[in-house]
C-alpha cells in the first residue's frame, strides 16, 4: 500500500500477520503521523480453528485435548478449567490427592508461561540475554512435564474427575530441588533488567490503564492487577487446593507496563511458594473420582440429577419445565496465567455437550490494544503487546 498523495501526512503501516514481535498471527493496521499513532485497528481470526463448534460433535472426554491447544503455553490450566466445568455440571467430587496434583501442575504451568512472557517481552525491547536465561529454566520444567504426562507442551493431563496418572517421588524430588533454586534465578533476571535505566525509561509511564477503565474493558489477570484492582479467581472463587495453601496476590499501582511486569515477577515467587506448600501437604489416595466419565465408555450420556435444578416459572408455557430440565448449564473459571479463563457449558443430557463457550482472556485483552496504542509511538506498540501478553491460540480459538 503506497500512499501517493503528498499532501496527506499520515502513513498506513501494516504490522502484518507475520511479524517477529506480535507473538502469533495478529495483524495491526496503524495510521501513523510521523512517529505518533493516530489509529490502531487489530484484526484477529487468523488462527480460528472452530474449537467451540468441534466440541459439539465430540464427547466430553474427547474434547479435553482440544482445550490443550487453546492457550498452548499453559495447557494444564485449560484442561483443569474444562474439567472443573464438567465436574461442576455432573456433581463429581474430585479426590484430595488429585486436587493437589492439579494445583502443583497448574502453578508449574504458570511459571512456564510467565517465563516465555519474560523472554519474549525482554527480547522485543532489546535485552536479548534474558530470553536465553528464561528458556534455560523452562527446560527443567518441560522435562518434568514430560516425565509425568508424556508431553512437554500440550499435556492433556487432567481428566474429568481427577488426573490421568499418579506422580512419583522422583518427580517431587526434582521439583523440590528446582523450586529451592528458583527464587535466585528470578533475582538473576531482575538484576539484568529491573533497575536498568533503559528498561525503566521504556516501561514506566507507558501504556497506562486506570482501574476504572480496566474494569470497564473486562480485563483480568496481571493486566488488571497491575492497575491496582484486586481480583484473582483463586481467591474469589477457590477451586482445587487453593484454599488450603497460603499465597499473596501482588498488586500494582499505576497501571503502566512496569507495574504489570512487576506483578508477574512477583507471581513467580508466589507460585514457587504454592508449589512448596503443596509438596509438603500432598495426601495419598486415589487420583480419579468414582463416577468420572471414562474414556472407554464414550457414548454413555452424562447423568445429571433432575432434583439439583431448582426453578420458578413465570410464563404460562407448560413445556418450559421439561426444557429447563433438559438443558442445565454451568460456568466455571480458572486463573490462567493470562487472566480469567472461563468455560460455559450447556448440557443436553447426552454424551456430547450442547454448547461449549470458551471465555478467553486474550480475546478481551486484544480489544484494549487500540486504547493503549493510540497517542503513543510505534516502539511502544511492541512494548504494549508484550505487556498484555496475548496468545492468539486462545484469542481466536
Amino acid at each position, binding site marked *: 500500500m503506497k500512499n501517493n498523495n503528498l499532501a496527506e501526512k499520515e*502513513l498506513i503501516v501494516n504490522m502484518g500477520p507475520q511479524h517477529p514481535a506480535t507473538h502469533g498471527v495478529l495483524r495491526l493496521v496503524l495510521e501513523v503521523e510521523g512517529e505518533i499513532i493516530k489509529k490502531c485497528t487489530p484484526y484477529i481470526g487468523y488462527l480460528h480453528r472452530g474449537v467451540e463448534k468441534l466440541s459439539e460433535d465430540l464427547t466430553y472426554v474427547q474434547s479435553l485435548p482440544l482445550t490443550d491447544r487453546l492457550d498452548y503455553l499453559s495447557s494444564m490450566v485449560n484442561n483443569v478449567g474444562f474439567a472443573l466445568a464438567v465436574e461442576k455440571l455432573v456433581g463429581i467430587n474430585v479426590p484430595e490427592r488429585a486436587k493437589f496434583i492439579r494445583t502443583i501442575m497448574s502453578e508449574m504451568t504458570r511459571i512456564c508461561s510467565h517465563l516465555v512472557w519474560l523472554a519474549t517481552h525482554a527480547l522485543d525491547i532489546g535485552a*536479548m540475554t534474558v530470553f536465553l536465561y528464561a528458556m534455560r529454566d523452562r527446560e527443567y520444567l518441560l522435562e518434568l512435564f514430560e516425565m509425568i504426562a508424556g508431553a512437554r507442551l500440550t499435556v492433556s493431563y487432567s481428566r474429568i474427575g481427577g488426573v490421568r496418572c499418579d506422580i512419583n517421588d522422583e518427580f517431587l524430588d526434582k521439583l523440590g530441588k528446582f523450586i529451592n533454586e528458583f527464587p535466585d534465578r528470578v533475582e538473576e533476571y531482575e538484576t539484568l533488567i529491573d533497575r536498568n535505566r*533503559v528498561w525503566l525509561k521504556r516501561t514506566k509511564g507507558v501504556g497506562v490503564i486506570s482501574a476504572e477503565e480496566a474494569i470497564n474493558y473486562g480485563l483480568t489477570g496481571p493486566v488488571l492487577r497491575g492497575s491496582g484492582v484486586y481480583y484473582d479467581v483463586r481467591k474469589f472463587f477457590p477451586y482445587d487446593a487453593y484454599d488450603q495453601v497460603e499465597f499473596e496476590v501482588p498488586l500494582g499501582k499505576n497501571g503502566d507496563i512496569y507495574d504489570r511486569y512487576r506483578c508477574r515477577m512477583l507471581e513467580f515467587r508466589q507460585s514457587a511458594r504454592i508449589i512448596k506448600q503443596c509438596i509438603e501437604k500432598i495426601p495419598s489416595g486415589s487420583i480419579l473420582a468414582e463416577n468420572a466419565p471414562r474414556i472407554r465408555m464414550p457414548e454413555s450420556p452424562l447423568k445429571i440429577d433432575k432434583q439439583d435444578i431448582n426453578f420458578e416459572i413465570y410464563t404460562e408455557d407448560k413445556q418450559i419445565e421439561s426444557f429447563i430440565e433438559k438443558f442445565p448449564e454451568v460456568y466455571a473459571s480458572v486463573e490462567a496465567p493470562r487472566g480469567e479463563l472461563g468455560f460455559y457449558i450447556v448440557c443436553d443430557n447426552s454424551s456430547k455437550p450442547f454448547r461449549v463457550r470458551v471465555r478467553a482472556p486474550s480475546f478481551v485483552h486484544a480489544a484494549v490494544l487500540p486504547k493503549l496504542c493510540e497517542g503513543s509511538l510505534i516502539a511502544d506498540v511492541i512494548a504494549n503487546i508484550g505487556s498484555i501478553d496475548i496468545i492468539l491460540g486462545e484469542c481466536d480459538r
Partner: protein
Amino acid sequence: METLNLIFLSVIYTAIYFGILLLHIAYATYAERKIIGHIQLRLGPMVVGPHGLLQPIADVVKLIFKEDIVPSRADKFIFKVAPLISLTAALSSFAVIPVNQNWVISDIDVGLLYVLGIAGISVYGIVFAGWSSNSKYAFLGGLRSAAQMISYEVALGLSLVGVILMAESFNLTEIVNKQSEYWYGMFLLPQIIGYFVFIVAMLAETNRLPFDLPEAETELVAGYFVEYSGARFSLFYLAEYAAMFCMSALAAICFWGGWTVPPFLIKAFPFLEEVPGIVWFLLKLYFHIFLFLWIRGTLPRYRYDQLMAIGWKVLIPLALVNIVLTSILKYYL
C-alpha cells in the same frame, strides 16, 4: 622512476592494509556470535571448522550465491548504488588511520577532520537504501537512522575537539605522539568526559544496541535494509562492521595513546618497551570491539524519542562543557 616506485609501493601497501582489515572485519562477525553466545549461556558457531572458525567464510560464500532480488518497483539505480556508497565511505576512512609510527597509507594533516567528513557521507548510503526500496518499513527505518546518525555526529565531533585542543593538531600520528609526552600517556585521564561522550556517540553512529532502533529486528524487521538480499546485504553488513572498526581505532588513537605505552608504566616495567607498538594498538582496538559486543549482549533498546533526547539534550552539553574545561586547563598549564 621514483614516482613509479612510489606508486608500486603504495599499491602493495594499500593491498596489505586492506587485506588484513577485511579479514578483521570478517572475523569480527564470528567474534560477535561467539562472545554474545557465551554471554547468553550458549556456545555460538561450533560446526564449520574447529570451534566454528571457518564460519565467516561459509557466510560469505552463502551470501554470494544467494539470488539477487531487486524489488520490481524500486528505483533500480539508487537501489544498487546504496550499499556501494556505504561500504566505500566506511572503508575510505581507513586511509588515514595509523597503526604504528609511519605505518599509514596517507599521513595528511587534517586526518581527524577527514574521518568525520567521511562519516557524514555514509549517511547517504542509508537514506538511499531506505528511499529506493519502495517499502514503508525501509522508508521509516532509513529516515530514523539518518536522523540519528546526523544528530550523533555533532556529539562525536564535539567530543573530539577536546583531544584536538590538547594535541594541537588534526594529524592522527601527531595526536598519538603528543600523548606519550605526558606522564599519564593517554588523553583518557584529562578527557574522561569527552571519552564518555565519544563512546555513547560511537554506539549511536554505528547503529548498535542500545541505539539500534532503525534496524531493530522486532520493531521494523531490519529497517532500511529489509529489501536487500545476497551480496548487496553482505556489503551493508561489512559496512557496519567497518564503521565499528573505524570508531574503535579512533578511540584507541585519540584517547588511549595508539601504539605507545604511558611513560609511568614504562618506568615501572621497563620490558614493556620491547613489545612492538602494533601489539598495543591491536589490544586497544580489540578492547573497544569487545565493548561494543558486551553492551549489545546486556542492554535493552532505547525508544526513538528517548534516543534523540539523549543525543541533543545530554551529550552535546556535556561535550561543550568538556571543551570549555579543556581550554581553561590548557590556558593555565
